[in-house]
């Protein structure tokens, strides 16, 4: 009897170590699949157009998606805990309004940045407190604050625009790192990717986020301050809305009340496409990074091939659905495989 058990354990060990199984395990990870998809996309566009694989173009294209990609990073934390924030575009609009208004009355660049970050942080804090104090669903609260925050911008700005900014304000959203062809925005994004990856994957704080997402109840019982952490998530997201509003206003040098409309859904799409489970507790910064690059360069490449924006919308919608459907099918496949292997070793 013992011998048989030994044999089964051994065969299982061999089975798990076999190259084929390990390859299957590896390639059915969402992050790996995404990486393969992005390589395929790059190869496809490189073959189809000579303008794609050009360092200058590739770097220039990042202007189109850096801001949304930055916003996707704090959104990972929110979604990781099973929450959602659909008010971020409105917070960006509110901050941009404040920046535009202050700039018109002659505020300096540091004070503009300070104002944007302050307003964003307060707006995010408001979201977080409203959601956790009464245990209201995040989607309902941020749906309301979406109208409240943008409503303030619309109410104060009306159909006007703010277009006067201090000299050099254009640096953040338009300029390159001196002496290179790398946009400042993109470098900032890369730094933030490393920062968020460190927090999520290398710190206790990050592990606690996973714990909350898997079971807020269990996390609370094990001494994690769930409410506080959720408030922090929303506040941090608000802070980054302020930061993004600076980049956006600096890039287009014009603030209207409809600025960044529709970004909420686009940014959530990036996060979910990157493999973060909407129910929380699963995902990685690397996945979201690759997902953001994939969407950005897909749009860029399709633009080069003169595909209409319409088709891109459809492709991104399909990508999102596939992104969720595929891992589920893969999980089913893996579970079936495991079951088969277990039956085989039992026989």
């Amino acid at each position, binding site marked *: 009897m013992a011998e048989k058990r030994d044999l089964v354990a051994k065969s299982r060990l061999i089975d798990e170590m076999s190259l084929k199984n390990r390859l299957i395990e590896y390639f059915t990870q969402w992050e790996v699949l995404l990486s393969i998809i992005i390589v395929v996309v790059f190869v496809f566009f490189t073959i189809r157009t000579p303008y794609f694989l050009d360092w200058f173009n590739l770097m220039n294209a990042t202007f189109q998606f850096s801001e949304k990609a930055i916003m996707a990073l704090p959104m990972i934390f929110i979604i990781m805990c099973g929450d959602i924030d659909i008010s971020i575009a409105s917070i960006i609009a509110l901050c941009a309004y404040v920046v535009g208004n202050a700039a018109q009355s002659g505020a300096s660049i540091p004070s503009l940045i300070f104002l944007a970050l302050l307003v964003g942080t307060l707006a995010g804090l408001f979201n977080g407190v409203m959601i956790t104090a009464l245990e*209201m669903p995040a989607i309902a609260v941020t749906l*309301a604050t979406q109208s409240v925050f943008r409503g303030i911008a*619309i109410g104060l700005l009306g159909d006007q625009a703010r277009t006067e900014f201090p000299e050099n304000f254009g640096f953040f959203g338009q300029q390159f790192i001196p002496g290179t062809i790398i946009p400042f925005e993109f470098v900032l994004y890369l730094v933030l990717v490393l920062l968020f990856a460190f927090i999520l994957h290398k710190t206790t704080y990050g592990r606690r986020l996973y714990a909350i997402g898997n079971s807020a109840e269990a996390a609370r019982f094990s001494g994690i301050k769930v409410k506080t952490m959720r408030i922090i998530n929303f506040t941090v997201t608000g802070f980054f809305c302020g930061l993004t509003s600076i980049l956006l206003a600096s890039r287009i040098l014009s603030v209207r009340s409809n600025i960044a409309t529709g970004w909420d859904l686009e940014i959530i799409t990036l996060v979910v496409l990157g493999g973060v489970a909407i129910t929380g507790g699963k995902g990685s910064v690397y996945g979201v990074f690759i997902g953001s690059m994939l969407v950005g360069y897909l749009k860029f490449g399709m633009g080069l091939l003169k595909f209409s924006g319409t088709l891109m*919308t459809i492709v991104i919608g*399909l990508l999102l659905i596939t992104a969720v459907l595929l891992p589920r099918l893969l999980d089913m496949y893996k579970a079936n495989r495991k079951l088969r292997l277990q039956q085989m070793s039992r026989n």
Partner: protein
Amino acid sequence: MPDLSFSSFVKKALARREATLTVLLVVLLVPISIRSPQFLSAKNISTILNDMAILSIVAIGEFYVILSNGIDLSVGSIIAFTGMATGMINEANPTVSPLLLLLAGMGIGMVMGLFNGVLVAYGKIPPIITTLGTVNIYRGLTFLLSGGTWVTAHEMSKSYIDFPRNSFLGISNLLWIALLVIAVFYYFSRYTRTGREVYAIGGNPTAAKFVGVNESRVRVVVFLISGTLCGLAGALWTARYASAVNEMATGFEMQAVAACVLGGVNFAGGSGGIIGVVLGTLFLGVVTNALPVIYLSVFWQTFVQGLIILIALTLNTMSDQRKTKKLLAQRRG
């Protein structure tokens, strides 16, 4: 022994969401009508009701999805696609009767809703993700269908454009249709088996499955209802505004969800009613229409709407929590 006193009756009636909303509506109307007596004129009331008719139809569809503990973000895009489709059918065949166009809109909307429902029920994709995807897909398809062009008033037949405005017994066709939809779904959610099953699935899916409710079927049905009603709304939208543009009804999902929240529909699923949703829609309509009366620029409309939703949500949650506490206390006592 049951408490039969008048005060307890009033208390019970006020505890109902519908009653609270009605009282609030009246409280809101009194100062407005004092300030501007023509606000309650027959003409203005009919304007408000007609303005809200399409939203009430869409909000009822959204209500079923939220009731089943989901959300449908794709309603605006379904309205756009069906509105564009019926507009183009009308442009190609000006003789087609408006009723047939409404049916066409409903048919197309039904297919789109079915697609959402199948992805949610059988693909097991959370509703928010599914409809986040299809909101893009359907909007993109609208552009593909139209080729980026518009259908304008002079390309549409007079009978179609006039249809929502024409009145029968002094009430516009648009309003009749909304009333019919309200009546049908009031009956559906209270007296039919499937209607009750939606409440069951939203309230407690595990328990519902144990008593034999087919969860997948219910999830498909709610999206089917939402899609079909959006199709109806799309066909009416094109006729009422006498044009079909690609961007039509962008962001309409937020208004539909807002009407539900105001109407006391619980986001966790399982509670709420049609009358509440209709009152929520009316409330939104009155507030929007009243802004000029209180000399507030229309630019503040979005802010006021958001604030009202936030307040309604807070009050809802607080009263729910009080009820739960009371129940717990009763059980202990």
